[in-house]
Each structure stands twice: as structure tokens, then as C-alpha cells.
């Protein structure tokens, strides 16, 4: 029997996002990895789920989700299969992590290739290089070296080129 994808979900688990495909034979997959979960017991708020010989206890307590007693931040949303990826024309480059800008490597109206370094951010003794997500022209630079930035703050703006 051909197996087919019957659903797709985007799951965010502690700020990390996975796309999970659910297959007609009950398999779940993330990227190239295929997993076959088994529900062993299922109480009202607690499930014991076995995957690859590992057991996970999932429970909800006062609207908080726990896996094996560890609290997790979690949400999911369906990804529709007829959904066409939208091409982003303009975007702000943001930082996930707060820190200090140590160097801006580009100027406004510069053209950059995908993965070209744009600026350096230093946080907790680590230097992080922030790169261009696609070929683009720098439309605006909102920060300079020495600026302290918060998470989700826009650092510069790009237009696809």
C-alpha cells in the first residue's frame, strides 16, 4: 500500500520549530527521519507515548505542558498542503537573542548574496554572525556598532533582488 501524507503541522517546542508530517500508515516524520509513536495509556490529561523504545509522559497541569516532568513551551498549527510558499519581498532582519552589536559589515544600498555576513552580535561571550537570508539590497540599517539590542528587534531591512 502506498503511504501518503495526510497532514502536516508546524510545531514550536521551546522556541525550536519542526515541521511534522503525519502519514496514512500512522508514521510521523521530521525531515528525513521517520518515527512511529505508540500510545500506551491515555488518561484525561496524561498520555504515555512510546517512540523508538523511549517513553515520554506528556501531561497538562493548569494549562502548562510537561514532558517527563519538565515544563515545555509548545504550540502547533496545521500547514495546508495546497499552501503555496509566499515569496517575501521585503523583510526586517531581527535578532532572536539580545546582545551588543560589535560590527556592521554592510552599508545601505549594498547588494548582498544569500549567506553573506551582515553584522556581528556579541552575547554571553559568544560572537554570532548574522547572515543574509536571500539575495537582497540593504534598504535600511537600524543599528550601529556598540548598540545594545533586544530579542526581536529589527537590525536592518532588506529588499529581495
Amino acid at each position, binding site marked *: *500500500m502506498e503511504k501518503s501524507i*495526510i*497532514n502536516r*503541522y508546524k*510545531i514550536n*517546542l*521551546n*522556541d*525550536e520549530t*519542526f515541521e*511534522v508530517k*503525519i502519514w*496514512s*500508515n*500512522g508514521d*510521523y516524520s*521530521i525531515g528525513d*527521519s521517520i*518515527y*512511529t*509513536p*505508540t*500510545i*500506551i495509556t*491515555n488518561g484525561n*490529561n496524561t*498520555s504515555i*507515548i512510546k*517512540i*523508538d523504545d*523511549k517513553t*515520554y509522559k*506528556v501531561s*497538562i497541569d493548569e494549562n502548562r*505542558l510537561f*514532558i517527563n*516532568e*519538565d*515544563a*515545555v513551551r*509548545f504550540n*502547533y498549527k496545521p500547514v495546508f498542503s495546497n499552501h503555496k510558499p509566499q515569496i517575501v519581498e521585503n523583510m526586517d532582519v531581527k535578532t*532572536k*537573542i*539580545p*546582545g*551588543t552589536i*560589535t*560590527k556592521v559589515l554592510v552599508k545601505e544600498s549594498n547588494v548582498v548574496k544569500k549567506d553573506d555576513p551582515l553584522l556581528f552580535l556579541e*552575547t*554571553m*561571550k*559568544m*560572537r*554570532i554572525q548574522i547572515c543574509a537570508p536571500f539575495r537582497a539590497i540593504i534598504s535600511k540599517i537600524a543599528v550601529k556598532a556598540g548598540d*545594545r539590542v533586544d530579542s526581536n528587534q529589527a537590525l536592518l531591512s532588506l529588499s529581495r533582488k
Partner: protein
Amino acid sequence: MGFSKVLIANRGEIALRAIHAAKMLDLKTIAIFSKGEENDRHVKLADDSFYLGDGNLADTYLNIPKILQACQEKGADAIYPGYGFLSENPDFAEKVSNEGYKFIGPSATAIANLGHKLMARKRAQEANLHIIPGSTTLIKDFQHALTIAEQIGYPVILKANYGGGGVGILNVESPLKMEEAYYHVTELLDSVQSNSEIYIERYLDHPKHIEIQFFADKFGNIIHLGERECSIQRRHQKLLEESPSTTVTEQMREELGELVVDFIRTYNYENAGTVEFLYQNGEFYFIEVNTRMQNEIGVTELVTNYDLILEQFNVALGHPLSFSQKDIKLKGHAIEVRINAENPLDNFHPSPGTIQSVFLPSNANTRTDTAIFKGYHVSPTFDPLIAKILAWDINREQCRKRLLTALSDFSIEGVTTNSHFHKILISSPEFISGKYDTKTIKNSTIMDILQKEQHHKAIALLAHSMKSNYDQNPYPLRSNVNMKNRGRI
């Protein structure tokens, strides 16, 4: 030489340890703090505190004039540097002494001489320690780097002559990669520490990192306290330490320890320090000396049963060492893991935030060194280290199990940490056998297992929430019962 009021020029767990030691000796303490740290434990625990203001580290914990001003205003007569920050800055040690305060650590001259890594290498070799083949002079320019690398043979490693914390270490595979690597390292060093001197060593491909703790007093007594193995690293920064090392026999410990003591004797050294080695193919290679108390002394404290921070104060007060070489017998086994606010699966990137809840493990022979509490802000300004969990037991396997139970008990909300990574690490065959080195994280399946478990969790949560959200399960999750038949259809 005595002192009665100590300014603690540090924060976090090490500041707490120093304040505890001072209290044991009936000394008064002054904490320093920057904006946002008003409620931190070290500020509460010290007798008095001095506000450094807002700004980057250069304006606060690295601001020498301001710290000296704090001493003067608060009437301190000694400074405890801790680790990191100004602890290995000879300028700081010198200014502190010149102002008439006691620096709880080695002299500015000893810090400067040992901090010049190329010079320390030379003197180590003269003291019969082996060194990794490499340059005998500083690298003048990119052409010079090419010539030297050609002589010692690729792959090589470019290393900062000053500084630590893993900044400015880069390996170079071939001459083609040299230009990029050379400029990358020197520019990076220029921007972070305004000294871009480098030298070159041959690259060892699977070394263990093993270090010897030593202690010296002003009467010329120098003793060593055995070794720690710190091979588990990411970005050249340690994540796990243990003592003793599975590699080091009693005889090796004695021989290496004696060589270390003889080497340190040439420096007129006072207080604590560590000589770091790489070990590969049966040979110990000297790499550098840390002229401060290290982060990972806890494992040495557990196997020797001495309070080494208290000993630093004792020695600084002018007393002789409270133990002799024959008192040092490593008893049992200790392992420490560093809990960092970081995500191992996102390249170990830091994860600052505010701690919503925390539970710290406690058990017989289990210790947690930390300064965090519910509501504590893990700031992007500082190192991601938030706690160290240590276990001791009569042998390594018991110790490992004890640590595993402690890690299972540890829980925290508000920041992502590497605690689960540590559980997988210490359960791995590499760690259990002791056959691990500085490349194990990269070359083992530890990261794959961690990634897979993360996938499992995502799927388990999705499966669970579908079960919970729909009365009838619309998706074909398997139950135990029909599972058996499925494969045969």
C-alpha cells in the same frame, strides 16, 4: 600584610564562595554590582556593596579605576578577583598593589610572565615539560605564518598569545586556508582584547584536556592537588570536569605533579593556579598556565576534601599552606557538569531570559554551586554559566549514577539549558568508558541522540494534544493492540 575588609571584584557563584570564605575568617566584605543586579545574592550576602552603574562590561566589572574607587570609598584593604573579568590582568593586580591593597592571587609579575603564553611555553620546556611543536617567536604577518606552518606541518592551530576563554583559537587545515584564518583571528583579537599577537602550534586531532591544580604560599611551599580532566568542550570552553582522570595513574600523577611544582618554583608564585596539558598518544603536552582559581575546582575540593577558596584567603593573609604534599590523596571520584543557559541543538547558542521557576538537586554527596533563584535575570551581558552540579562517590560509576539522578531532579523554567545534553553525555558509551577527548561531542552520536529526542518530544506533544483536543481521534495513532497486525497488511 593582614587585611580585614575584602572587595569581591566578581559576581555570581564565585562571589558567593568568596563571601562565605571571608565570613569564616571574620573578614568584612564589599560586593560590586551593575544595573539589574540589585537583588542578586552576592549583593545581599556581603556586608556592604558598591554600585558600578549601567553599561557594558568595560564600564562595570572591567573598569579598573571604578573598582579602585570602590575600595577607597568603602575602606576595603584587599581585593578578591575570582575567575574571568580582571582575574588575570597584570595591570589590575599591579594597580591594586600600588594603591596598597592586597591582591588575593599571584603577583602582577607572575601573572604577566605566565600570561605571555609563548614565553611560558619556553620556560615550561626548560623545566622539562613537553610542549607541542610550534613557533618559538610571535607571528609577524601572514607570510610568516605560512613559513612557520610549513616548517611544523599542517594541520596547525593559531593561538592568541594573551587571553583565554577560548577566544582566538583556530585550526588551519592547509596553506590555502591560512590567509582567511590569519586575518579572521587577528581581527577578532583586535576587536575583543586589542592585542592580536599570535603564535602557531601543531594541531592535535584527538587530545584529552588534563590539568594540574597547584597552590603556593609565600614561604616557598608549593604543592599540587592532582589532576582534573576537562576534555568535554564546546568552542574551546569546558562543559564537564572530573577528578581523577581515567587516564592518569598514581605514578603519572606523581611525576607530572612534581614537574609542575618545579616549573612553578621558577616564578616566585603565591596562591592558586593551574597548569593545563593536552594528552595524546601517551604524552602530556604543556599548553598554558591559568594564574587564578578556576571554575572547575569543585571536583578537586570533593576528592581532596579541602575548601580551596578559603585556602586562597589563608595564603593571602600570609599563613603557610594548611596542607602538605603528603596530605593530598585523591579519595573517590567527583564529576561536575556546567549548566549553561544555552541551546545545544542551536549550535549551543546562548538563551538569556528570566527564571520562572527552578529546582536545584540535593542529595548525599551532591552539590550545586549557583547564585540563581526564581526571578533571576540571566543577562546577555554575562557568561551563560548559571549553575554547576557536582557529585562525589567512592568510585567513578557510582559517581556517574549519582550525577545522573541529580540531573534528573534539576528543573528550570524560563531559559533553555544544556541539562538534558549532560544526561545524554554522561550516559554515552564514550563517557562511561572514559575513552573520550576534546572531539567527542563532534564525533560521537550524542548530538544525534539529543536531536532525535527533541523530535520525539515534538511528536509526543502533537500526538497528545490531538488526543486531548478531539473526542474522536481523527488521526491514525497506533494503539498497542492493533500495532502488531499493521505491518502484515
